[in-house]
């Protein structure tokens, strides 16, 4: 056995010291608490969006979000940490979303998945994210089920949900035309049916006012026959829940056949550039709709400070992006909200703290939300945006009217 000499002790001492120093140092830095994917210089954030496939027009949300984080990084990052935003293509197919999200969580080791897009895609990862306790923050879909803090405490929605919009239309119709006969046009899928349910729930015992329920498929060439049918059956209220292409067709057809009902247009199809212009402004006059975002194609915002800020961002960081596309406004707001939560986390950048901060939004306003609309959350309320404002089209632009309305669902 080797004898311990003074010399060997002296030789060992610096080594022993060197060993203890790194053991001590993390203790000193204990004010910082990091979850997976976070270092002093970086936060990894994951995302999925449809860059290919039938829903690829929504892919622009992922692109504008990526551009937003590039801007954040150019400005020095979030609390000194650069955001490494990893966005994968899921082509809007749920199995691909599961695969890509598992890759983000298990391989890329992201801290959270921010604004994954699409109702079926988010439904597919809903269970997984909550099992793994990874934040699925501010999902880019308006389905009603995301506000479930008890059952799914790691998932949070963002936009006003379709059902509450449906209820808002019901309230408006009951006030304007309490004895009207309602025809509704909706897309035969989740959001279309959410609108229908919201409208009927809002009408309550007067749900029988809805006399024509006409659906369309995204693959249909036109919706002309549905519109003609509604006129023939004597409907005098038209709730138009089409995506821009179909909403525009319906407006144009109604104009052609001289049908002048009380026309309520849902928020998914109320873009001036994508819907009203192709439909013809003369046909679109007096249509009412609801808004929570500033319509980028609406000239009334051209001197608005928030709108200018967004315009400057688009010019510099996403020059390819179409400024008339509402997706680029929605994506901007989503990224801004996620960045706000990350900033609020301070140096405790953990998954738990993200959900805690996200559930603690107090009157959070964004430049591209309508004036007065603010995001609010609490431990029991995980639906950040609930307010919308009605507007009437005067033949050239949307004129906001009335107070901000809060939907009753979720």
């Amino acid at each position, binding site marked *: 056995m080797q004898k311990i000499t003074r010399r060997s002790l002296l030789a060992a001492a610096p080594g022993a010291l060197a060993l203890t120093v790194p053991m001590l140092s993390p203790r000193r830095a204990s004010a910082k608490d990091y979850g997976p994917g976070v270092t002093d210089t970086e936060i990894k954030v994951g995302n999925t969006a449809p*860059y*290919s*496939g*039938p829903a690829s027009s929504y892919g622009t949300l992922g692109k504008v979000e990526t551009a937003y984080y590039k801007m954040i990084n150019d400005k020095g990052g979030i609390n000194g940490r650069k955001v490494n935003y990893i*966005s*994968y*293509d899921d*082509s*809007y*197919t*749920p*199995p*691909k979303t*599961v*695969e890509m999200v*598992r*890759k983000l969580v*298990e*391989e890329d080791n992201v801290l959270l998945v921010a604004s994954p897009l699409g*109702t*079926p895609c988010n*439904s*597919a*990862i*809903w*269970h*997984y994210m909550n099992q793994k306790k990874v934040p699925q923050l501010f999902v880019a879909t308006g*389905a009603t*089920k995301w506000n479930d803090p008890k059952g799914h405490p790691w998932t949070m929605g963002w936009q006003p949900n379709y059902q509450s919009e449906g209820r808002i239309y019901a309230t408006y119709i009951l006030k304007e035309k309490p004895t009207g006969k309602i025809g509704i046009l909706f897309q*035969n*899928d*989740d959001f279309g*049916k959410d609108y229908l349910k919201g409208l009927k729930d809002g009408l309550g015992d007067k749900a029988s006012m809805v006399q024509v329920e006409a659906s369309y*498929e995204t693959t249909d060439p036109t919706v002309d026959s549905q519109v003609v049918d509604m006129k023939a059956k004597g409907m005098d209220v038209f709730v138009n829940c089409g995506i821009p292409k179909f909403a525009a067709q319906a407006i144009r057809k109604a104009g052609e056949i001289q049908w002048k009902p009380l026309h309520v247009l849902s928020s998914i199809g109320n873009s001036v550039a994508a819907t009203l212009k192709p439909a013809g402004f003369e046909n679109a006059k007096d249509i009412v709709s609801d808004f929570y975002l500033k319509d980028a194609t609406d000239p009334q915002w051209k001197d608005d400070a928030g709108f200018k800020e967004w315009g400057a961002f688009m010019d510099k960081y996403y020059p390819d992006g179409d400024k008339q596309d509402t997706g680029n406004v929605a994506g901007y707001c989503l990224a801004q909200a996620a960045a706000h939560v990350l900033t609020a986390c301070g140096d405790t950048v953990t998954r738990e703290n993200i959900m805690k901060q996200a559930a603690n939004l107090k009157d959070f306003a964004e430049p591209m939300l309508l004036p007065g609309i603010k995001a609010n959350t609490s431990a029991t309320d995980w639906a950040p945006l609930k307010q919308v404002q009605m507007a009437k089209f005067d033949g050239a632009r949307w004129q906001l009217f009335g107070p901000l309305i809060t939907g009753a669902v979720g």
Partner: protein
Amino acid sequence: MTAPVTSTTGSAATGNTAAVTAAPARGWRLERRHLVSAAVVVVAALIPLVARSFVLFELTMVMIYGLAILGLNLLTGFNGQFSLGHSAFYGLGAYTAALMMHLWDVNYLWTLPAAGGVCFAVGFLFGLPALRLQNLYLALATFALATAMPQILKFHALEGITGGVQGLTVDQPDPPSFLPVDSDQWLYYLTLIVIVLMFWAASNLVRSRSGRAIMAIRDNPIAAAAMGINPSLYKTLTFGVSALYTGVAGALGAFAIQFVAPDSFTIFLSVSLLVGLVIGGVGSIPGCLFGGLFVLFVPNIANSVSTGLAGAVYGIILLLVIFLMPAGAAGFARLAVARLTRARRQ
């Protein structure tokens, strides 16, 4: 297959197993393909000891797509009937498993044969009208099946059962308590066992009398009928078996993804399976697994090359593969082996 081989001797139930047991008359020989298969299975069984969960998940999906492609291959590659409708059978299998677990709390293992059975029945029935259709017309008819499937699942009257567009959540199978594996590893092994059994069965099927009858119909239907093969029966049965394979793959897919929704089973899935079939090798059983690799990984590779041009990159890769391996991966492998052996002999 327990189908009578000839219509004249309808009572002679010469099934697949019978054909295999008949083989020893010629003497069972250990062939190179047996050794290769055994080696592949051993390696596959060892992978979970070293691989991470996500890699296992990906490999599980590769096997599942491989199995679905095998189903299509039995129909298209061996029997010469086109189908663009296999996404419908895949979805039907997935929904059968999901609904049985959702509505009646059936153990997941029972859902696999059930999914296979349901798909066999539907496939067989669909095979009956398909008898009147050839080639492109059959492709169109099955295309209709694929387009109809997501809509049927969304249909209002069925919404209460199918969950409509919102889909259904499926619980991931828990590993049996006596095995020291986690759920990803268990699913991998479960899939591996199912795959080995079904590939073995398919391989025996195509080497049996029934298999030769199936291929004879593909090669020359008139000559086949003249030899006493009943083409209608064989074609419909092949349709059923093909749907069975794809349906079991769908059920396994539902376990792996833990979610079923109409948007998961669109025509695009059918096209992917067809691409996997051609890439793997038409009429090759092991090639199907290579097809599965292609279906899962190439879109990801394309996406990592360029997010904006993912579709174009995918197309370029597809063209390159077709040019380099015109007979699919299986043909390429055969060619390579032949070249190597010739080089050694010289």
